[in-house]
């Protein structure tokens, strides 16, 4: 009981402290979108197009009767389901991440990448919309697997004709086309369908340590898995 009241008092103080006027947006954003992974920012007011101030801030009190509803107070986020608008997932404003695949366990790496590409690490996750980020993988030929998978893991493909099954081991494929290993792993973890195919195009894998995306200023991918680095 006491803790609930204390908690509600805490919450109401958090509400009243941060809000000078009802439904007024915050004046300054704490951190730019890309820089801090843990930086808090009010999501629905991110993009430029949505930054129009609600009229209640501009219109003097006597004239407010001339406006009503949405245009006066801004969109109602509490009584309608939020769905991302086009301005919420502009491709040019997405975050870019870069990962070095040297000595990382293949599956664990692919899982983290897929989560970031899908957008499941953000609170505004929507399954029908591409809300994820871009991921660049470098040093793809140095990715590691545990156990005897290097010589025993098989990659199969079929040409469609009878007897057209082609089988390759991990080793052979790594010598031939190393990028395909990571692409195959991540593709299996992304949704299959139109949206999944588009998400797959947000993955960029490269063989050496160089990648041509310096202009996008990719940030190091935050990895929370402790067993992703191959130790022995």
């Amino acid at each position, binding site marked *: 009981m006491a803790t609930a009241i204390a*908690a509600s008092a*805490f919450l109401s103080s958090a509400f009243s402290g*941060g809000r000078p006027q009802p439904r007024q947006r915050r004046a300054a954003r704490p951190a730019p979108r890309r820089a801090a992974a843990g930086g808090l920012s009010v*999501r629905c007011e991110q993009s430029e197009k949505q930054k129009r101030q609600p009229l209640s801030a501009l219109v003097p009190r006597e004239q407010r009767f001339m406006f009503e509803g949405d245009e006066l107070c801004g969109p109602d986020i*509490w009584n309608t389901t939020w769905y991302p608008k086009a301005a919420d997932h502009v491709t040019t404003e997405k975050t870019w991440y870069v990962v070095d695949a040297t000595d990382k366990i293949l599956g664990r790496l692919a899982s983290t990448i897929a989560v970031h590409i899908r957008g499941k690490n*953000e*609170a505004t*996750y929507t399954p029908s919309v591409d809300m994820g980020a871009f991921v660049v993988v470098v040093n793809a030929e140095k990715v590691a697997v545990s156990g005897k998978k290097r010589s025993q893991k098989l990659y199969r493909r079929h040409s469609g004709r009878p007897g057209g099954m082609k089988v390759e081991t991990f080793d052979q494929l790594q010598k031939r086309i190393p990028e395909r290993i990571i692409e195959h792993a991540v593709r299996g973890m992304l949704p299959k369908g139109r949206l999944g195919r588009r998400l797959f195009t947000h993955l960029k894998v490269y063989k050496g340590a160089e990648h041509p995306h310096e202009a996008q200023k990719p940030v190091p991918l935050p990895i929370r898995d402790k067993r992703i680095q191959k130790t022995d």
Partner: protein
Amino acid sequence: MEKVEEKEIGFLKMNKGKIFKLAKGFRGRAKNCIRIARERVEKALQYSYRDRRNKKRDMRSLWIEQINAGTRLHGVNYGNFMHGLTKENIQLNRKVLSELSMHEPYSFKALVDVSRSAFPGNRPAVKKEGLAAIL
């Protein structure tokens, strides 16, 4: 049951206009030819009946996914977060929690801190100074 079925079949037999109205936007012949449209409209109505109930389930699971993502940004996962909230008797539902995590990040962080503090292991040990430390 038979009466209802007859009524339903009657409805679908007699109102071509109504069927074509419901078949707007369907693919191919299903929007133009009555025999095909009737089947597809019947199926569409069945799906909409079923999905009115599924929608509630789907929305809840989406809220849970969003809350999970929001709490993991603060280092807590969904299960422990909800456990902490129920311990503190905070009865906010998942819809509101997901909206808070999207639109009110500071309030949501406060909630995560409340939930974290509900577990006795998380409270920082009080430092005793002077005589109390010796005692």
